[in-house]
Protein backbone atom coordinates (compact mmCIF):
# COMPACT_ATOMS: atom_id res chain seq x y z
CA UNK A 1 0.00 0.00 0.00
CA UNK A 2 2.84 2.35 0.97
CA UNK A 3 4.72 1.42 -2.23
CA UNK A 4 1.62 2.18 -4.30
CA UNK A 5 1.25 5.59 -2.63
CA UNK A 6 4.91 6.35 -3.37
CA UNK A 7 4.46 5.37 -7.02
CA UNK A 8 1.43 7.64 -7.26
CA UNK A 9 3.40 10.47 -5.67
CA UNK A 10 6.28 9.96 -8.14
CA UNK A 11 3.77 9.87 -10.98
CA UNK A 12 2.17 13.14 -9.92
CA UNK A 13 5.52 14.89 -9.32
CA UNK A 14 6.81 13.83 -12.76
CA UNK A 15 3.59 15.06 -14.37
CA UNK A 16 3.74 18.40 -12.52
CA UNK A 17 7.30 18.93 -13.76
CA UNK A 18 6.82 17.67 -17.32
CA UNK A 19 3.44 19.17 -18.25
CA UNK A 20 4.62 22.83 -18.00
CA UNK A 21 7.70 21.93 -20.07
CA UNK A 22 5.54 20.35 -22.81
CA UNK A 23 3.11 23.30 -22.67
CA UNK A 24 5.98 25.80 -22.98
CA UNK A 25 7.50 23.91 -25.91
CA UNK A 26 4.16 23.78 -27.74
CA UNK A 27 3.45 27.47 -27.15
CA UNK A 28 6.88 29.01 -27.68
CA UNK A 29 8.53 26.34 -29.84
CA UNK A 30 8.71 26.32 -33.60
CA UNK A 31 8.28 23.65 -36.25
CA UNK A 32 11.95 22.61 -36.22
CA UNK A 33 12.07 22.21 -32.44
CA UNK A 34 8.96 20.00 -32.54
CA UNK A 35 10.49 17.96 -35.39
CA UNK A 36 13.68 17.38 -33.40
CA UNK A 37 11.89 16.59 -30.13
CA UNK A 38 9.47 14.19 -31.83
CA UNK A 39 12.41 12.43 -33.50
CA UNK A 40 14.19 12.04 -30.17
CA UNK A 41 11.01 10.78 -28.49
CA UNK A 42 10.34 8.36 -31.35
CA UNK A 43 13.84 6.88 -31.11
CA UNK A 44 13.59 6.56 -27.31
CA UNK A 45 10.15 4.93 -27.63
CA UNK A 46 11.48 2.58 -30.28
CA UNK A 47 14.41 1.60 -28.08
CA UNK A 48 12.01 0.86 -25.24
CA UNK A 49 9.94 -1.28 -27.60
CA UNK A 50 13.01 -3.16 -28.81
CA UNK A 51 14.25 -3.66 -25.23
CA UNK A 52 10.88 -5.17 -24.39
CA UNK A 53 11.30 -7.58 -27.30
CA UNK A 54 14.85 -8.77 -26.62
CA UNK A 55 14.27 -12.45 -27.28
CA UNK A 56 14.17 -12.32 -31.05
CA UNK A 57 16.48 -14.13 -33.49
CA UNK A 58 19.79 -12.40 -34.21
CA UNK A 59 18.90 -11.87 -37.87
CA UNK A 60 15.76 -9.98 -36.88
CA UNK A 61 17.57 -7.91 -34.29
CA UNK A 62 19.91 -6.66 -37.02
CA UNK A 63 17.00 -4.56 -38.31
CA UNK A 64 17.45 -2.46 -35.17
CA UNK A 65 20.86 -1.22 -36.29
CA UNK A 66 19.15 1.73 -38.01
CA UNK A 67 17.65 2.94 -34.74
Amino acid at each position, binding site marked *: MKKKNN*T*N*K*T*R*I*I*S*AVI*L*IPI*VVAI*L*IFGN*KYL*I*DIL*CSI*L*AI*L*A*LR*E*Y*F*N*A*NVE*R*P*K*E*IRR*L*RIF*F
Partner: protein
Amino acid sequence: MRIKFSDIAIELFGICYILGFMIFIPLLYGTTNGKITIWYLMLAAWGSDIFAYSIGRRIGKHKFTKISPNKSIEGCIAGVIGSVVCVVIYTVLINTIKGAVIPYGYIIFVGIILSILGQCGDLAASSIKRETNIKDFGNLIPGHGGILDRMDSIIFMAPTAYILLMFF
Protein backbone atom coordinates in the same frame (compact mmCIF):
# COMPACT_ATOMS: atom_id res chain seq x y z
CA MET B 1 16.96 -19.92 -33.50
CA ARG B 2 14.50 -20.37 -36.36
CA ILE B 3 13.00 -17.19 -37.78
CA LYS B 4 9.22 -17.14 -37.51
CA PHE B 5 6.82 -14.88 -39.34
CA SER B 6 5.56 -13.55 -36.01
CA ASP B 7 9.11 -12.40 -35.10
CA ILE B 8 9.36 -10.31 -38.26
CA ALA B 9 5.80 -9.03 -37.83
CA ILE B 10 6.38 -7.91 -34.23
CA GLU B 11 9.64 -6.18 -35.18
CA LEU B 12 8.10 -4.35 -38.14
CA PHE B 13 4.96 -3.53 -36.15
CA GLY B 14 7.06 -1.58 -33.64
CA ILE B 15 8.74 0.41 -36.38
CA CYS B 16 5.48 1.21 -38.19
CA TYR B 17 3.47 1.79 -34.99
CA ILE B 18 5.92 4.19 -33.40
CA LEU B 19 7.58 5.96 -36.34
CA GLY B 20 4.68 5.77 -38.80
CA PHE B 21 2.13 7.14 -36.35
CA MET B 22 4.34 9.60 -34.51
CA ILE B 23 5.32 11.45 -37.67
CA PHE B 24 1.79 12.90 -37.69
CA ILE B 25 2.53 15.00 -34.57
CA PRO B 26 5.04 17.31 -36.34
CA LEU B 27 2.86 17.15 -39.45
CA LEU B 28 -0.14 18.42 -37.47
CA TYR B 29 2.00 21.10 -35.82
CA GLY B 30 3.24 22.18 -39.24
CA THR B 31 -0.22 22.85 -40.68
CA THR B 32 -1.47 26.44 -41.11
CA ASN B 33 -3.04 26.63 -37.64
CA GLY B 34 -0.89 23.87 -36.17
CA LYS B 35 -0.09 25.80 -33.00
CA ILE B 36 -3.83 25.84 -32.23
CA THR B 37 -4.88 22.43 -33.53
CA ILE B 38 -2.06 20.51 -31.80
CA TRP B 39 -3.78 21.33 -28.50
CA TYR B 40 -6.81 19.28 -29.52
CA LEU B 41 -4.57 16.23 -29.64
CA MET B 42 -2.92 17.02 -26.32
CA LEU B 43 -6.11 18.00 -24.50
CA ALA B 44 -8.02 14.98 -25.79
CA ALA B 45 -5.20 12.69 -24.60
CA TRP B 46 -4.71 14.37 -21.23
CA GLY B 47 -8.42 14.83 -20.56
CA SER B 48 -9.14 11.24 -21.46
CA ASP B 49 -6.27 9.88 -19.34
CA ILE B 50 -6.94 12.02 -16.28
CA PHE B 51 -10.73 11.51 -16.24
CA ALA B 52 -10.48 7.77 -16.96
CA TYR B 53 -7.89 7.29 -14.20
CA SER B 54 -9.53 9.39 -11.51
CA ILE B 55 -13.17 8.40 -12.13
CA GLY B 56 -12.32 4.77 -12.85
CA ARG B 57 -10.42 4.53 -9.57
CA ARG B 58 -13.33 5.92 -7.58
CA ILE B 59 -16.41 4.35 -9.14
CA GLY B 60 -15.00 1.74 -11.54
CA LYS B 61 -16.66 -1.63 -10.82
CA HIS B 62 -17.17 -3.39 -14.14
CA LYS B 63 -13.97 -4.73 -15.70
CA PHE B 64 -13.44 -3.61 -19.28
CA THR B 65 -11.00 -6.21 -20.66
CA LYS B 66 -8.62 -8.95 -19.57
CA ILE B 67 -5.71 -7.25 -21.35
CA SER B 68 -5.66 -4.49 -18.76
CA PRO B 69 -7.44 -5.59 -15.56
CA ASN B 70 -7.27 -2.14 -13.94
CA LYS B 71 -9.45 -0.55 -16.61
CA SER B 72 -13.19 -0.33 -16.02
CA ILE B 73 -16.14 0.49 -18.27
CA GLU B 74 -16.95 3.48 -16.03
CA GLY B 75 -13.38 4.77 -16.46
CA CYS B 76 -13.55 4.42 -20.25
CA ILE B 77 -16.83 6.35 -20.43
CA ALA B 78 -15.38 9.00 -18.10
CA GLY B 79 -12.35 9.20 -20.42
CA VAL B 80 -14.56 9.96 -23.42
CA ILE B 81 -16.53 12.56 -21.44
CA GLY B 82 -13.29 14.12 -20.13
CA SER B 83 -11.85 14.37 -23.60
CA VAL B 84 -15.01 16.01 -24.96
CA VAL B 85 -15.18 18.46 -22.02
CA CYS B 86 -11.54 19.50 -22.51
CA VAL B 87 -11.77 20.03 -26.28
CA VAL B 88 -15.09 21.89 -25.99
CA ILE B 89 -13.71 24.26 -23.31
CA TYR B 90 -10.66 24.87 -25.51
CA THR B 91 -12.89 25.56 -28.53
CA VAL B 92 -14.97 28.04 -26.51
CA LEU B 93 -11.75 29.87 -25.58
CA ILE B 94 -10.43 29.83 -29.15
CA ASN B 95 -13.75 30.97 -30.61
CA THR B 96 -14.00 33.77 -28.04
CA ILE B 97 -10.40 35.00 -27.93
CA LYS B 98 -9.28 34.42 -31.50
CA GLY B 99 -12.67 35.02 -33.09
CA ALA B 100 -12.61 31.65 -34.83
CA VAL B 101 -15.78 29.81 -35.85
CA ILE B 102 -14.97 26.20 -35.07
CA PRO B 103 -18.23 24.18 -35.05
CA TYR B 104 -18.95 22.58 -31.67
CA GLY B 105 -20.70 19.53 -33.12
CA TYR B 106 -17.61 18.64 -35.11
CA ILE B 107 -15.34 19.21 -32.11
CA ILE B 108 -17.48 16.92 -29.93
CA PHE B 109 -17.15 14.27 -32.66
CA VAL B 110 -13.35 14.82 -32.71
CA GLY B 111 -13.20 14.53 -28.90
CA ILE B 112 -15.13 11.25 -28.89
CA ILE B 113 -13.10 9.68 -31.72
CA LEU B 114 -9.74 10.77 -30.29
CA SER B 115 -10.60 9.52 -26.83
CA ILE B 116 -11.68 6.10 -28.15
CA LEU B 117 -8.47 5.85 -30.20
CA GLY B 118 -6.38 6.93 -27.22
CA GLN B 119 -7.89 4.17 -25.12
CA CYS B 120 -7.20 1.70 -27.95
CA GLY B 121 -3.57 2.90 -27.84
CA ASP B 122 -3.49 2.29 -24.09
CA LEU B 123 -4.80 -1.22 -24.62
CA ALA B 124 -2.29 -1.86 -27.44
CA ALA B 125 0.59 -0.88 -25.14
CA SER B 126 -0.84 -3.02 -22.33
CA SER B 127 -1.15 -5.91 -24.74
CA ILE B 128 2.51 -5.55 -25.82
CA LYS B 129 3.58 -5.45 -22.16
CA ARG B 130 1.51 -8.52 -21.37
CA GLU B 131 2.90 -10.37 -24.39
CA THR B 132 6.50 -9.58 -23.43
CA ASN B 133 5.96 -10.09 -19.68
CA ILE B 134 7.22 -6.70 -18.58
CA LYS B 135 5.66 -4.24 -16.15
CA ASP B 136 7.12 -1.00 -17.52
CA PHE B 137 8.69 -0.13 -20.87
CA GLY B 138 11.37 1.95 -19.18
CA ASN B 139 12.06 4.30 -16.29
CA LEU B 140 12.94 7.50 -18.09
CA ILE B 141 9.80 9.20 -16.73
CA PRO B 142 9.55 8.06 -13.10
CA GLY B 143 6.16 6.62 -12.14
CA HIS B 144 4.84 6.64 -15.71
CA GLY B 145 6.30 3.40 -17.01
CA GLY B 146 8.49 4.81 -19.77
CA ILE B 147 8.09 7.08 -22.75
CA LEU B 148 6.16 4.55 -24.81
CA ASP B 149 3.69 4.07 -21.97
CA ARG B 150 3.14 7.85 -21.74
CA MET B 151 2.94 8.39 -25.47
CA ASP B 152 0.84 5.33 -26.38
CA SER B 153 -2.49 7.14 -26.54
CA ILE B 154 -1.07 10.19 -28.36
CA ILE B 155 0.68 7.93 -30.89
CA PHE B 156 -2.63 6.24 -31.71
CA MET B 157 -4.55 9.50 -31.89
CA ALA B 158 -2.06 11.44 -34.04
CA PRO B 159 -2.94 10.18 -37.59
CA THR B 160 -6.69 10.61 -37.05
CA ALA B 161 -6.19 13.99 -35.37
CA TYR B 162 -4.17 15.11 -38.39
CA ILE B 163 -6.87 13.98 -40.84
CA LEU B 164 -9.71 15.49 -38.79
CA LEU B 165 -8.01 18.79 -37.98
CA MET B 166 -5.79 19.56 -40.96
CA PHE B 167 -8.44 21.74 -42.61
CA PHE B 168 -8.76 24.24 -39.74
